[in-house]
């Protein structure tokens, strides 16, 4: 089966004319049509456009032109990244029919790289959630256990890669939304340094925390995609003009002498013992490979979640104010504009989004700004300082990506606070703005677990080296979910 191979393998097939771009794309479209009715990773599939783009790539191949590493590779984008002329919904009723008149920078860059856009994938509404249960269009299922969540908010993106509905996808990560679903679904997910990838065209959730990153089968694939999307963008004032390396240069199977810190606060009571055990085994593997591992402390970790939920919701409450029925999106009928605003937003937003808008508005409101928002920003400084200190001694830090494996549908949705608390291992990274990658690190009761490497700002290279070495010396990344007969038959549920 030609799908199911990595991006670099597919590139070889195309270059050697073992398969045409049209054939390849068709295979992925077929795959989507087969398995997606069950899994529901996709919100929009653009078959015709994808076939047109493939024809273009095939023309290049027949003319023996040089193919770039991502050229002709079928992929999907999380539905919060603007795609010109193609519906972009943020999994919300508010933007159900929104058709952006422009491309996000990442959309543009992947287009220039010659990738084939297959469609847009499901997410928690406006990226708010950790399970993709908050999508207006229904939930996406975890292919490893259809009764469990794929994680969130980039659930669709992780599933698509896990079951070969796309060779790679782009997700976004504000508090763990790439890494946690990657861990839950057994794929590789990288959240780059804040400012490394342009946010222009990414529909904003929390401006100072959001970052776009690749979800892939292998670490090599991840580096290839990051090469294409990262780099300074003058349209994003928070984008950094750093010297972008070729990230594939760091794919070296060698971590001898690599100093790895294990922050003890990430291995506390909230971590499932089986997950902790799994990660311990992974740590042992790293030690066997020559890494120098020792414990460290990030003392302010316990304050990260409250700080995150105040900052992120405050920024979100402001970013989502524009959804009012005037210029685009849903509009509810009303006698006057005030009524229109209130009804439109009541109708257009789901519960979690409304809850976070309320929380964020409160945190910024008169009399509470100092105690909540300002306080949280100060705590953010302390959390960042914790990491800075740790990186004086260590090259990378390591933790479980998530405290548990994928939970069941409905298990956490009744208590929002419980859902928020499960972000303890991912949220501090966004507050500090540093990069982190999650890679498959084993299984607990049949469900994947992920191992998270955290690095210094703009040191994705070391993360890739550590991840690549672990990957090359383990088999986890080769394991795939076995889809039931029902799913493969495109069955109904």
């Amino acid at each position, binding site marked *: 089966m030609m799908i199911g191979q990595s991006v670099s393998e597919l590139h070889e097939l195309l270059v050697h004319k073992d398969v045409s771009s049209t054939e390849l794309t068709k295979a992925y479209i077929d795959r989507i049509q087969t398995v997606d009715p069950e899994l529901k990773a996709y919100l929009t599939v653009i078959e015709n456009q994808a076939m047109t783009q493939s024809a273009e790539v095939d023309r290049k191949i027949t003319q023996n032109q040089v193919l770039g590493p991502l050229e002709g590779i079928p992929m999907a984008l999380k539905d919060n990244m603007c795609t010109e002329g193609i519906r972009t919904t943020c999994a919300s009723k508010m933007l159900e029919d929104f058709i952006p008149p422009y491309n996000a920078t990442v959309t543009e860059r992947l287009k220039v790289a010659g990738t084939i856009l297959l469609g847009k994938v499901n997410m928690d509404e406006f990226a708010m959630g950790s399970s993709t249960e908050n999508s207006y269009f229904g939930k996406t299922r975890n292919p490893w256990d259809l009764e469990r969540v794929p994680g969130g908010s980039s659930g669709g993106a992780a599933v698509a890669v896990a079951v070969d509905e796309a060779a790679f996808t782009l997700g976004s990560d504000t508090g763990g939304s790439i890494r946690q679903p990657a861990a839950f679904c057994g794929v590789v997910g990288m959240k780059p340094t804040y400012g490394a990838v342009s946010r222009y065209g990414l529909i904003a959730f929390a401006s100072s925390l959001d970052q776009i990153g690749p979800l892939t089968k292998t670490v090599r694939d991840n580096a290839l995609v990051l090469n294409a999307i990262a780099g300074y963008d003058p349209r994003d004032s928070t984008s950094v003009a750093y010297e972008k390396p070729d990230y594939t240069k760091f794919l070296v199977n060698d971590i001898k002498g690599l100093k790895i810190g294990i922050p003890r606060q990430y291995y506390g009571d909230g971590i499932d013992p089986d997950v902790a055990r799994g990660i311990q085994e992974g740590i042992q593997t790293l030690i066997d490979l020559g890494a120098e591992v020792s414990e460290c402390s990030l003392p302010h970790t316990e304050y990260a*979640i409250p700080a995150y939920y105040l900052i992120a919701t405050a920024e979100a409450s402001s970013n989502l104010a524009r959804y009012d029925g005037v210029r685009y999106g849903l509009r509810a009928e009303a006698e*006057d504009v005030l009524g229109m605003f*209130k009804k439109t937003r009541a109708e257009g937003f789901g519960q979690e989004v409304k809850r976070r808008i309320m929380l964020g508005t409160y945190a910024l409101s008169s009399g509470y700004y100092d105690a909540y928002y300002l306080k949280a920003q100060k705590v953010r400084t302390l959390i960042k300082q914790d990491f800075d200190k740790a990186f004086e001694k260590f090259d990378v830090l390591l933790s479980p990506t998530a405290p548990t494996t994928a939970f069941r549908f409905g298990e956490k949705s009744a208590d929002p606070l419980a859902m928020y608390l499960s972000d303890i291992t991912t949220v501090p990274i966004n507050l500090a703005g540093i990069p982190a990658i999650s890679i498959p690190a084993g299984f607990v009761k049949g469900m994947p677990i992920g191992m998270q490497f955290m690095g210094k700002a703009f040191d994705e290279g070391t993360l890739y080296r550590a991840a690549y070495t672990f990957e090359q010396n383990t088999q986890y990344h080769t394991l795939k979910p076995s889809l039931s007969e029902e799913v493969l038959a495109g069955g109904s549920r």
Partner: protein
Amino acid sequence: MTISREDVEYVAALARLELTEPEIKEYTEQLNSILGYAAKLERLNTDDVIPTAHAVPLNNVMREDQVGPSLDHEKALNNAPDGDEGFFRVPRISLT
């Protein structure tokens, strides 16, 4: 710090969200729970700490004063729920 129902109604008005009665009750409870948890931040002494507004220490990011392309008229109004002769139309605006 307890959040009252009045607080929730005030915040909903600020955020232009029309809430149902069950929603008001639910959010009052949930906001209390979440903010009660967030109160643990008070334990930290942050008197001498500078707040972080930006994750990356950038400053003076500016562009030149050169005219760039604007959106096509149609494109600008393409998603408008009520576009009228090039304008975005809205119902009556009361004076608040």
